[in-house]
């Protein structure tokens, strides 16, 4: 029996977990659900020793334990398979399984035969099939996951955490995974199963717990509980953030700025939609819904996905973000540090980088005077808090960094702006400012797309919402239909999903 008692974890500015108590029995599948940011991942990281709880304790069979590293929690029999696998791509399956804990012969050399034998035995026990001698990079996602499962369970494993294990699997692979989980159950392993896909929970779990805003709000048997009840428990919060009043849906009669026809990912239904001038179009969905991928493909970052696009009524084919920019389409990436900012550069350089061609004299020389004028204008407009536009952008807070990226794109005079997770990880004040700004842009007649996993945000600011799942659009919501229940229902595969 694994018990977490009164766990509290604080990060600067937020309480990630507030007095959470959960327990997991051997041979039980315990589902953990909640919106993004509810605290599920933090809780699991405490289990695995990545984080330490500020308050509360962890008990295994009644004895208190304090894992401070993943290796320690593994020794205690707790194993976690995260969404992003931790496999070394060019090593083969059994090398990955035994990585860092290889079995040696008495001469100190690697004992390949014993390791292969053990791996083979583990595979048979779980009735799994994948090649042990091929680099894992050559395996399918489902097979890689199987490698992870064997890796997690081959030594002592009493408790297993699966974080969104089905997010990137096909329905048939999900079925296979569930068979494996059933076998693990039979072997006496207790599983925490984290998933956004509620129907899966009813299929596989015995118990379900709901986290909301870091608080534990519900635990009960899966039988006698409905999807609707779970959804209302997950989202049943007062929307506390202040959103500016919506301007109302843009006139449907107005010509759309962009029409997308038959964008198709391999193995998915095709996607068709339009973005209208003056509206904020929300794109909702769960991990693996291919929201970001769709729009990266639209701006030419991944031209290989087939699609027909009309921009301002004319067919266009974008082969690079540069071409998108020349047409007036901008994409603001979700990961601002990795793909948005030039961290070592000044605020000014970060703002003007997409606009330099316009800041030159007749000889093509960049004029610092014009650069400064432009960056100062947008620093003021975005209320970026800084003493100088020459300050390094890495010194700014997350909210101000996000505003720098927005400033870059406002300066570029685009007609369609795609914001991918525009407020992820920034404080409430900056969020409110960004919302006002998004509405101003729509009011100016731009097309504004907001890809967001933050449900209150989608509900609070969007005039129209597309709900995506597995690379296709499951619903288009407007007006009062834009609510948590409907979005979660379609995003998690309800209503013939």
């Amino acid at each position, binding site marked *: 029996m694994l018990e977490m008692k009164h766990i509290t974890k604080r990060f600067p500015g937020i309480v990630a977990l507030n007095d959470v108590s959960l327990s997991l029995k051997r041979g039980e599948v315990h589902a953990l659900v909640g919106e993004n940011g509810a605290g599920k991942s933090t809780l699991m990281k405490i289990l695995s020793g990545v984080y330490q709880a500020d308050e509360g304790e962890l008990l295994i069979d009644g004895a208190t334990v304090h894992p401070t590293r993943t290796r320690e929690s593994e020794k205690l029999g707790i194993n976690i398979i995260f969404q992003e696998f931790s496999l070394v791509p060019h090593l083969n399956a059994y090398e990955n399984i035994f990585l860092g804990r290889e079995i040696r012969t008495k001469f100190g050399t690697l004992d390949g035969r014993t390791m292969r034998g053990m791996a083979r035995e583990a595979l048979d026990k779980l009735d799994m099939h994948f090649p042990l001698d091929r680099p894992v990079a050559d395996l399918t996602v489902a097979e890689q996951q199987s490698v992870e499962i064997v890796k997690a369970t081959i030594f002592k494993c009493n408790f297993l955490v699966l974080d969104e294990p089905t997010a990137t699997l096909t329905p048939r692979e999900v079925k296979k995974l569930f068979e494996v989980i059933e076998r693990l159950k039979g072997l006496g392993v207790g599983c925490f199963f984290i998933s956004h896909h509620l129907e899966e929970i009813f299929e596989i779990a015995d118990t379900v717990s709901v986290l909301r805003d870091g608080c534990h709000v519900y635990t009960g048997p899966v039988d006698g509980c409905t999807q609707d009840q779970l959804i209302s428990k997950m989202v049943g919060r007062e929307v506390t953030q202040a959103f500016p009043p919506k301007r109302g849906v843009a006139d449907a009669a107005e010509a759309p700025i962009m029409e997308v026809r038959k964008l198709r990912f391999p193995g998915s239904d095709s996607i068709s939609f339009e973005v209208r001038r003056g509206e904020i179009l929300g794109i909702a969905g769960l991990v693996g819904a291919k929201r970001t991928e769709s729009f990266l493909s639209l701006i030419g970052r991944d031209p290989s996905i087939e699609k027909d696009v009309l921009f301002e009524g004319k067919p266009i084919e974008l082969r690079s973000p540069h071409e998108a920019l020349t047409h007036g389409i901008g994409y603001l990436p979700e990961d601002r540090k990795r*793909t948005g*900012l*030039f961290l070592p550069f*000044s605020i000014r*350089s970060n703002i003007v980088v*997409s606009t330099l061609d316009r800041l030159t004299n007749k000889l093509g020389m960049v004029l610092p005077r014009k650069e400064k004028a432009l960056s100062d204008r947008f620093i003021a407009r975005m209320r970026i808090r800084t003493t100088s536009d*020459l300050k390094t952008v890495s010194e700014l807070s997350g909210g101000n960094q996000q505003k720098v990226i927005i400033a870059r794109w406002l300066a570029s005079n685009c007609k369609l702006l795609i914001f991918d997770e525009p407020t992820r990880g920034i404080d409430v004040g900056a969020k409110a400012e960004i919302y006002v700004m998004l509405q101003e842009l729509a009011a100016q007649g731009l097309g504004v797309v907001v890809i967001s996993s933050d449900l209150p945000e989608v509900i609070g600011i969007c005039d129209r919402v597309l709900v995506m799942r597995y690379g296709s659009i499951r619903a288009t919501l407007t007006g009062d239909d834009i609510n948590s229940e409907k979005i979660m229902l379609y995003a998690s595969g309800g209503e013939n999903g």
Partner: protein
Amino acid sequence: MGEAAAADAKSREPTGGLVGLAKAAVARPEFVSFVALIVLMVLTASMNDNFLTVDNLLNITRQVSITGIIAVGMTFVILTGGIDLSVGAIVALASTMMAGMIANMGFPFWAAALLAIMGGTLTGAVSGFFIARFALPPIIVTLAMMEIPRGLGLIYTNGYPLPIDREYGFIGREYVLGLPIPTLIMLAVFAVAYFVLNRLPLGRYVYAVGGNEDAAILSGIRTARIKLMVYAISGCTAAIAGMIQTSRLLSGQPNSAIGIELDAIAAVVLGGTAITGGRGHIVGTLIGALLLGVLNNSLNMIGLSPYSQRVVKGVILLVAVLIGYLRKQNSR
């Protein structure tokens, strides 16, 4: 972004005037090499009276010019996060091409020089094409391009130096306004590079590609084009160096400039440019190149054997980079 980095150091300490400027200068990564350069010069001057003479100092700048010019192109490449190992081979190819055109085909010097520089630029562009178009690793592509141009030079000359007449030694040997012509050419190349890196959009994009390539792509920068151009620029500067060398040695030398890519890289790194790209300054490269040149000259004057010189050079490079690293750690 280079100037921004300079001004940025200022902005952290808003003390105006000379104090502010001094603090900004100290904060710059090339400051270590600058101090080393001064210390080295003072030390050598105190040990040998012949060091601090106009003739010797001008001589050093002339000796430095070939490495310095190559290091300019190398700075562009390294700022994008790349590396160019092919520059020595391009020097050799440009040198043999040029000597061939003059000695065998009767071209005038300027035409041969121009064609050789164009040839070098094109050779660099070939590396750039493979790196930009197929995303091949620069170290591998330019490793291959270390072989091809030199091989072509060797084929053309059958492995022997190809002499040209004494009258073509003007560029390599003469003085204008009291300065050696190679020194003047080097200063001109640095000036052009300064202008391009700081005042043209291209320069900003070079920094952007090295600073964060993904962000650069999403910002609408044609990163492939920028990458192709920096290798072309590197080929161009290597060929200019090849031209000077041909004139100075009065021959096309297919076996010349072996290992010079490493000196050029050392100059760039000593100049404070990050080997990972995105940060650095062309003025630093000039300081780095001068440091290497003064070091060579000093060690000769002190009477250190060429074998010991290599040890000392290696140690100084290592120490300079280490100090730079520690300073960066401290400033965080």
